[in-house]
């Protein structure tokens, strides 16, 4: 509102507003407003022309009424008329009304645009500014359409006033944010970048906001701004506080501009030009030096401004992650702040340190502050600061200090705020697992965790303990002993009962020798908790009981008694009732042998991503932690962990964070149950379960533990039990053939390549035989159906096939075949099933040898089995930002494989898409700025590890030679994978 002091102070408006303020009730206010509206309507009726002053006054009143929350449906015309006034105040009110009240109303927009256009082309800077502000305030698409072309011209025109330039830059920024497609910077780019050299600091400040936003979208076009920004920054940093008269804020020269410059530089990698880089490093050093100087003023504004620049500089240093010297200095600087009395500074220091901790150069430096951080965790008053301290502890943890940190976190957990407990629990669980040297420590830690904060221990945590205990036989006895002791506490948490039930059920026999923990004692202990537990836990305990019957036949009668009791066998819960009935029958009917087979110890779980990690990430959202996690993963690669078991989890983990890929399923155990509970030893039995019972798995997942898994498909398992027994695993060679297999056919490689991007088709065909392939893959397991068709009318005899894989492949793949009928009738087709398990990544393909006699002549064929590493891909969806972040993180030379090759099949976009999809990776749309390019992401699932892969395919339709060329780049966390995939794919396009 304009000041009410001058001649045109609107008395009527002031009176109206004071009337409204004096209204005693809402009704009175509404009455007064109705009266005023009627008055204004009668004035606007159009009988007599209003002068500018009264028009302004009434429009002001309408605006006020609107801001009070009433609808205004007239007066727009008068407001638009005000735009053409020559008086500043009238124009201002007109623009104000329009920016507040006008929506995209067709007829008026034209008039308004006209008014704005007039003002923009006027020479009066004030009017131009008003018009620009209006455009920016409305910021609608219509506005952008009308003026997006005009504003850049004003921005770069030589004769534009500085203040107008400022407004124009910010206005353009706003339009760019709302409708980026309409703001085309093409021809203006270099001139806009050169605004960084403008004399007027205000213009630079405004322009840099615009440039930062633009360069985030098109980094390449604005590359030139880096050197300009660096020189500008160095000029500011090196200037004395008196140089920049108006732009010195409490003795700090141009703090806002400096921060923005530093932020702009964070959009780009370190400058390649040595001189520029040297200058920048110098700047950063100066900033760090300045932080050490005694403050020039006691005022808080001075230190705020100084620290703002400092933190932005540190962020830049962390972003570059290439100057060990600077990183360590930054870390020391932050270390000082850790003990600063200003809470905000401590918070920021902890937060920045968290990212510093992930840099290899400064990790050690960060670790020196461990005591301070632990202290902060314990004594800090503000919960958000404590949270940061916990994050930092988590980030700085490694093998050397894991025990200390985990112990501190555990002790803090007892007093921690409820809001961060669950996260703390997850972090403790992860650290304990990740850095465990001796697994009894791990088991102790987790059980402690459940004891202290049982309510916050999510399912994943105890799933994970059990996975680890089952997979590591050296801790099983210890674990059984510990849980047994823990269960003796009078009140223990339900999660503890679950762990106890499971572990005693599996490994109770390991401690049964001690009379203090005899089978009956164990059972009674478990059963004493039974009635206090929820239904899923009870179900688990019932499974534990039946396992007891197997482990300790002497407890059979007691347990049968329990199962037979009405509270079990007639339980109102169907699940419990069914278990009770089935277990009772099982225990009384089945012979000990069958019982022993059915209730055999759980097979080791396949190595997979820690579900806890996924959960933590999910909790935090992809942004917050994934970067540090990623770093964790990187570091972890270096320091090998006890069993070397978590390998390249991090890549997949990171990708899981942003995608709902099936393996990120939180129900760690559950999903692993039917799908991947197929250890090599259980051979065909369990692989069968995978395919046959696969679809039924969701239904089976009602059970909360893995116990029943082996019971679930009863007919199936018992059949195959009788057939082969689960133990005999090794794929017996289908049939013994005396002749040596022939060497692979010359065209076998080519045939193999046909199947890289597809899973079904004809593998081979000649006059006699046709071989068809159908295959399906799930995680690290695959199943292939081979169809041998006899094209002749004569039967083949002694038909036999064998799969051979030698040398390296033996440790990389596990292939099992079922024998085929030795007789193939003429025109008939036989089917063969081949189960494939990928142990680790591989580059060769197994050989398939086929022998048969056709009319007495021995036919001997050798082909390559169409199994390539890409078959084990799991697609990963991610957004552009994530993709490039990952891409950058896989920047080591050996992780990348690149090939430039000629297109051999033309460049049809749809065909390419189909091939890439067939590859098994996720084709990511809208990721690459160039729509011609294709990018894909996926994770190769092997038994040992998961390898994340990123692919970028850049077609170039008119290369120099006039030929169509491709550039294919693959990055993955494992060099062999990148290379192999690159070779495979180069043949495809």
């Amino acid at each position: 509102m304009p000041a009410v002091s001058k001649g045109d102070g609107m008395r009527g408006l002031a009176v109206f507003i004071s009337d409204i303020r004096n209204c005693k009730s809402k009704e009175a206010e509404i009455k007064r407003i109705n009266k005023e509206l009627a008055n204004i309507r009668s004035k606007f009726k159009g009988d007599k022309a209003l002068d500018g002053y009264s028009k302004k006054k009434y429009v002001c009143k309408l605006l006020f009424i609107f801001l009070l929350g009433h609808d205004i449906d007239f007066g727009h015309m008068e407001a638009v008329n005000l735009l053409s006034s020559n008086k500043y105040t009238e124009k201002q009110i007109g623009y104000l009304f329009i920016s507040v009240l006008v929506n995209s109303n067709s007829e008026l927009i034209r008039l308004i645009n006209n008014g704005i256009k007039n003002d923009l082309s006027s020479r009066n800077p004030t009017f131009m500014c008003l018009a620009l502000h209006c455009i920016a305030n409305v910021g609608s698409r219509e506005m952008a359409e009308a003026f997006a072309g005009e504003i850049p011209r004003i921005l770069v025109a030589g004769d534009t006033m500085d203040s107008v330039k400022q407004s124009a830059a910010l206005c353009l920024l706003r339009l760019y944010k709302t409708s980026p497609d309409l703001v085309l910077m093409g021809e203006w780019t270099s001139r806009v970048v050169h605004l960084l050299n403008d004399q007027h600091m205000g213009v630079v400040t405004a322009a840099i906001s615009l440039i930062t936003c633009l360069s985030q979208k098109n980094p390449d076009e604005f590359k030139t701004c880096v050197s300009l920004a660096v020189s500008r920054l160095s000029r500011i940093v090196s200037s004395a506080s008196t140089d920049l008269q108006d732009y010195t804020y409490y003795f700090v020269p141009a703090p806002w501009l400096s921060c923005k410059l530093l932020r702009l530089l964070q959009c780009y990698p370190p400058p390649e030009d040595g001189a520029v880089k040297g200058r920048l490093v110098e700047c950063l050093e100066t900033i760090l030096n300045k932080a050490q100087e005694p403050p020039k003023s006691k005022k808080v504004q001075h230190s705020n401004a100084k620290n703002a620049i400092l933190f932005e500089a540190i962020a830049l240093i962390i972003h570059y992650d290439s100057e060990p010297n600077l990183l360590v200095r930054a870390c020391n600087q932050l270390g000082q702040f850790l003990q600063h009395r200003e809470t905000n500074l401590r918070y920021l220091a902890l937060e920045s340190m968290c990212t510093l901790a992930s840099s290899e150069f400064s990790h050690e430096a960060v670790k020196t502050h461990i005591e301070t951080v632990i202290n902060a965790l314990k004594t800090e008053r503000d919960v958000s600061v404590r949270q940061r301290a916990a994050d930092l502890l988590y980030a700085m943890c490694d093998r050397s200090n894991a025990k200390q940190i985990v112990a501190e976190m555990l002790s803090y957990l007892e007093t921690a705020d409820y809001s961060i407990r669950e996260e703390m629990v997850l972090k403790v669980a992860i650290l304990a697992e990740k850095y465990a040297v001796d697994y009894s420590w791990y088991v102790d830690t987790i059980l402690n965790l459940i004891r202290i904060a049982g309510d916050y221990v999510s399912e994943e945590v105890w799933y994970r303990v059990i996975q680890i205990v089952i997979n590591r036989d050296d801790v099983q006895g210890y674990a059984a002993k510990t849980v047994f002791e823990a269960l003796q506490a009078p009140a223990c948490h339900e999660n503890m009962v679950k762990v106890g039930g499971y572990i005693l059920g599996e490994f109770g026999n390991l401690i049964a020798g001690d009379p203090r923990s005899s089978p009956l004692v164990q059972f009674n202990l478990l059963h004493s908790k039974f009635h206090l537990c929820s239904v899923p836990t009870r179900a688990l305990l019932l499974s534990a009981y039946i396992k007891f019957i197997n482990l300790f036949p002497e407890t059979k009668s007691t347990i049968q008694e329990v199962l037979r009791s009405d509270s079990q066998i007639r339980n109102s819960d169907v699940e419990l009732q069914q278990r009770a009935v089935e277990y009772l029958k099982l225990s009384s009917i089945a012979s000990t042998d069958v019982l022993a087979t059915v209730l055999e110890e759980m097979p080791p779980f396949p190595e997979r991503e820690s579900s806890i990690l996924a959960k933590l990430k999910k909790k935090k959202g992809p942004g917050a932690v994934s970067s540090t996690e990623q770093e964790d993963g990187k570091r972890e690669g270096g320091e090998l962990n006890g069993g070397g078991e978590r390998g390249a989890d991090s890549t997949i983990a990171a990708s899981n964070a942003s995608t709902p890929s099936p393996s990120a399923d939180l129900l760690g155990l559950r999903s692993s149950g039917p799908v991947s509970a197929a250890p090599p030893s259980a051979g065909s039995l369990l692989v069968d379960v995978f395919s046959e019972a696969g679809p039924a798995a969701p239904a089976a997942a009602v059970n909360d533990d893995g116990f029943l898994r082996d019971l679930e498909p009863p007919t199936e398992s018992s059949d195959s039990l009788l057939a082969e027994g689960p133990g005999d695993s090794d794929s017996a060679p289908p049939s013994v053939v005396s002749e040596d297999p022939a060497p692979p056919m010359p065209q076998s490689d080519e045939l193999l390549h046909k199947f890289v991007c597809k899973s079904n088709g004809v593998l081979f065909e000649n006059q006699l035989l046709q071989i068809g392939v159908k295959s399906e893959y799930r995680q690290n397991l695959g199943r292939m159906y081979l169809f041998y068709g006899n094209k002749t009318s004569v039967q083949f005899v002694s038909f036999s096939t064998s799969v051979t894989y030698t040398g390296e492949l033996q440790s990389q793949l596990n292939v099992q075949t079922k024998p085929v009928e030795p007789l193939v009738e003429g025109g008939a087709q036989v089917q063969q099933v081949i189960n494939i398990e990928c142990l680790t990544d591989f580059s060769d393909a197994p050989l398939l040898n086929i022998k048969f006699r056709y009319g007495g002549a021995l036919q001997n064929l050798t082909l390559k089995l169409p199994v390539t590493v890409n078959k084990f891909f799991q697609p990963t969806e991610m957004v552009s930002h994530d993709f490039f972040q990952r891409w950058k993180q896989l920047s080591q030379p050996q992780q990348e494989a690149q090939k430039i090759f000629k297109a051999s099949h033309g460049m049809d976009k749809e065909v390419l898409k189909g091939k890439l999809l067939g590859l098994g990776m996720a084709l990511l749309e809208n990721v690459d700025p160039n729509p011609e390019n294709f990018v894909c992401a996926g994770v190769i699932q092997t038994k040992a590890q998961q390898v994340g892969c990123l692919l970028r395919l850049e077609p170039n339709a008119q290369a120099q030679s006039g030929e169509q060329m491709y550039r294919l780049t693959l990055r993955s966390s494992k060099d062999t994978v990148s290379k192999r995939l690159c070779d495979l794919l180069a043949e495809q396009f």
Partner: protein
Amino acid sequence: MIGGLFIYNHKGEVLISRVYRDDIGRNAVDAFRVNVIHARQQVRSPVTNIARTSFFHVKRSNIWLAAVTKQNVNAAMVFEFLYKMCDVMTAYFGKISEENIKNNFVLIYELLDEILDFGYPQNSETGALKTFITQQGIKSQTKEEQSQITSQVTGQIGWRREGIKYRRNELFLDVLESVNLLMSPQGQVLSAHVSGRVVMKSYLSGMPECKFGMNDKIVIDKQGKGGSTDDAGKSSGKQSIAIDDCTFHQCVRLSKFDSERSISFIPPDGEYELMRYRTTKDIILPFRVIPLVREVGRTKLEVKVVIKSNFKPSLLAQKIEVRIPTPLNTSGVQVICMKGKAKYKASENAIVWKIKRMAGMKESQISAEIELLPTNDKKKWARPPISMNFEVPFAPSGLKVRYLKVFEPKLNYSDHDVIKWVRYIGRSGIYETRC
């Protein structure tokens, strides 16, 4: 049961706060203020549920009375209590205003202690209350008086004390009715009902037994069967009315009403409401409104309204007011009327036409030209109904008092010695005609 009772001024400041049950916390006071008094939209529902707590409110001028409960109470009971509370306060200190409430807060707390016990409503009869809650400081009462109060409060007839004596035994009876109507533009009745009250003021000595009779259809029919057929049949055929439902003051013997449908009672001293009733059939509509609205182009509206009075020419209706709503984009109004005064009130978006008096079977007319401002909104004007206010000296339901008999066997005055006054007043409730 009522958990607490709060009284607020128009700003939402708490004037009186009384909590009866522990389940109502202090924050309930604020919850009501924030969600009802200061609500962004005007709250029209008298019952508001906030966080599983129910707030029942009534508003008297600028004062809000809110009863709070967490239980599932009978809402009608709570409102009955709140109205009663208003009556009691009015009886003690006149108009309910912020000033009066502040001046009498001690008294109000005393009253609240008396009329609500642990959230259960108790005796709220003003006459009875006044015997032991007074505005004149505390004067020590004699033992005799105290025991008298005790016996009265705990006794069978809590609403009347013994030993009342008047030189002139008088009785005033008012039949107050409000007639509600919604009529279509063509004159078809869409809904109509009358809600009436019988209010009495009695100044009678001793403990008299009264009997009240009216032209209730059931009673008349019964009498018609039992008594002389021609006589009763004649009266019932024309004048009896069908009462849809009714409620009585606690002094009325309900058992007798159930069995004989006669209303007999020992009246409280002073003013009280004997009964309330509602009728929906054979309502005499005192006025008929005939609207005529014509839109002339986008910027002009012509309105003509005729009202006709529809009762005996000898009677006079008073305080007649017709309210004709105008569109929201009205920019000017010209009114011509034959009788009374008419004015465009911009603050209410309506033309208000006032006529002081009007006899029965007359007709009057107003015409207005409304100028409109063209607006951007395509919304059409909703044409709210024309509403009317008036007062007529008869009962639109057709209710007639047949008799009111007083018996006082112990004292020596008879029915004939009592001076009785009867008055009928019919007012408009929501009396609307669509246009």
